[in-house]
């Protein structure tokens, strides 16, 4: 079973984590004998088991400086955090006021979700904050006794590193601050919040958005065959219909049109293009998908033998077998005739892997890589030529309105 299906089943009906990144500055190693001098807590996002939702900005936070609770301190600790212990003795908040206020703020931001403390590494900050909440807050710890998330452990697991090699330096550069770790609790809590947004589910918001697109695309693709029963009879046992483009990539949106190809695995005449288009037109209308509209100069109905035998030939491009074959490999989903679709994939792969048997230890798919590069570059060149020749279509030329590299990128 695919992992995402498995995890969705496990996570259905779960409650919601609400992440708070925290950082503390102290004057010693343990709470009680020593004091927490400042702390910051930043709201970092929510996770419901399916997707992580990050806030638009990391601007919901609290910061407090506290009166020391004992006379003991370690000078080295003060040199690191550069906090003035004497000043805090005069001006710092009373711990019960600061912790009760922090707890109330956390519970208010979390709403119906459950607050989870996040830090990098967690062990030090958790031990201080938990102790202070229990000792001083009117309503105890908003994180209960165990709701916490260690970014260091997450980095170790996700990057398959030992824990001892999973410090902040293990993060890729764009997730690290460019300046030094400041040891100001608020700066550091925000930095951690940024890291946690990536490490908490490894994908951040992206998974959630793409998952929505996949779910919706899958729903439409599942429904599509029910509106293509006549075409299914026409292709029965001899052909397949597969979609490409955004439906093939399974990230179609409301405005995506349907791109499709038919491949037939016998020597009989190909089904008429107009018939295929008519069936697909009815189905897309029923599903409120933008209609299938292929151009006659780009045939979408092919014999499987042509898909295989035209590889590298001078006819491959203009017969459109080139595009049909490459999109079959790169981004396709079968809609009708799954058996033929599987045969088509197998035969096309075999054709590109012709020399594999003799080079199975070091075979590189160079032929295929060249064809893939050729396809995207042909798309760019064709687009450019079309917009130069057909300015009245109002289709922007890559050279006139955007840069050439835009076209190349898309």
């Amino acid at each position: 079973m695919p992992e995402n299906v498995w995890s969705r089943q496990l996570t259905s009906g779960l409650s919601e984590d609400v992440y708070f990144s925290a950082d503390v500055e102290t004057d010693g190693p343990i709470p009680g004998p020593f004091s927490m001098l400042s702390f910051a807590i930043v709201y970092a996002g929510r996770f419901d088991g399916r997707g992580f939702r990050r806030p638009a900005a990391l601007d919901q936070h609290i910061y407090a400086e506290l009166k020391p609770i004992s006379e003991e301190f370690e000078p080295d600790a003060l040199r690191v955090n550069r906090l003035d212990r004497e000043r805090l003795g005069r001006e710092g908040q009373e711990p019960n006021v600061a912790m009760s206020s922090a707890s109330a703020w956390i519970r208010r931001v979390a709403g119906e979700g459950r607050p989870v403390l996040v830090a990098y590494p967690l062990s030090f900050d958790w031990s201080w904050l938990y102790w202070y909440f229990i000792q001083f807050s009117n309503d105890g710890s908003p994180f209960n006794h165990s709701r916490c998330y260690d970014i260091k452990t997450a980095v170790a697991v996700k990057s398959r590193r030992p824990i001892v090699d999973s410090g902040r330096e293990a993060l890729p550069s764009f997730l690290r601050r460019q300046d030094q770790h400041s040891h100001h609790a608020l700066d550091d809590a925000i930095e951690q919040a940024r890291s946690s947004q990536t490490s908490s589910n490894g994908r951040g918001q992206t998974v959630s958005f793409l998952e929505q697109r996949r779910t919706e695309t899958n729903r439409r693709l599942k429904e599509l065959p029910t509106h293509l029963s006549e075409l299914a009879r026409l292709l029965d046992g001899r052909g397949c219909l597969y979609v490409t483009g955004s439906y093939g990539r399974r990230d179609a949106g409301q405005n995506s049109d349907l791109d499709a190809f038919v491949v037939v695995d016998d020597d009989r005449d190909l089904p008429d293009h107009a018939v295929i288009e008519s069936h697909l037109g009815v189905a897309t209308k029923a599903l409120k998908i933008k209609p299938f509209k292929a151009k006659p100069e780009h045939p979408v109905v092919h014999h499987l033998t042509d898909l295989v035998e035209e590889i590298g030939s001078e006819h491959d491009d203009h017969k459109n077998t080139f595009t049909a074959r490459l999109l079959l490999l790169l981004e396709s989903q079968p809609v009708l005739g799954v058996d033929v679709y599987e045969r088509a994939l197998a035969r096309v792969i075999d054709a590109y892997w012709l020399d594999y048997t003799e080079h199975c230890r070091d075979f590189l798919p160079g032929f295929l890589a060249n064809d893939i590069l050729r396809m995207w570059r042909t798309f760019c060149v064709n687009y450019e030529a079309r917009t130069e020749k057909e300015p009245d279509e109002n289709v922007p030329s890559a050279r006139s309105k955007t840069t050439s590299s835009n076209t190349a990128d898309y």
Partner: protein
Amino acid sequence: MVVRDEGAVSPHRMRSIVGESPTERLEQITELPLAALALRVLSRYETFLGYSDVSTSELERRVLSGETFPAPNELGDCVFDLLREIGTDARVLSFFRLLVV
């Protein structure tokens, strides 16, 4: 990554890759720093999907009015960063060269 880890790409391996969508292939990458680079690609792609999910006429209006896709090169840059990170590994250098030369 298959070339780097396995030294060759078998037809069987290719069939399993083909069974995933392009974004699912990126999500399979879990090791750092590649996973972070893959995440950036997915994030930029998501932005692109959101920007382009309008009618053709609206998309044309946006482009013609100069309202182009924000940071248009970023998606390509991110894909290249990912390829480069994988491709500069000595085990895949010759294959990487094939893609960029």
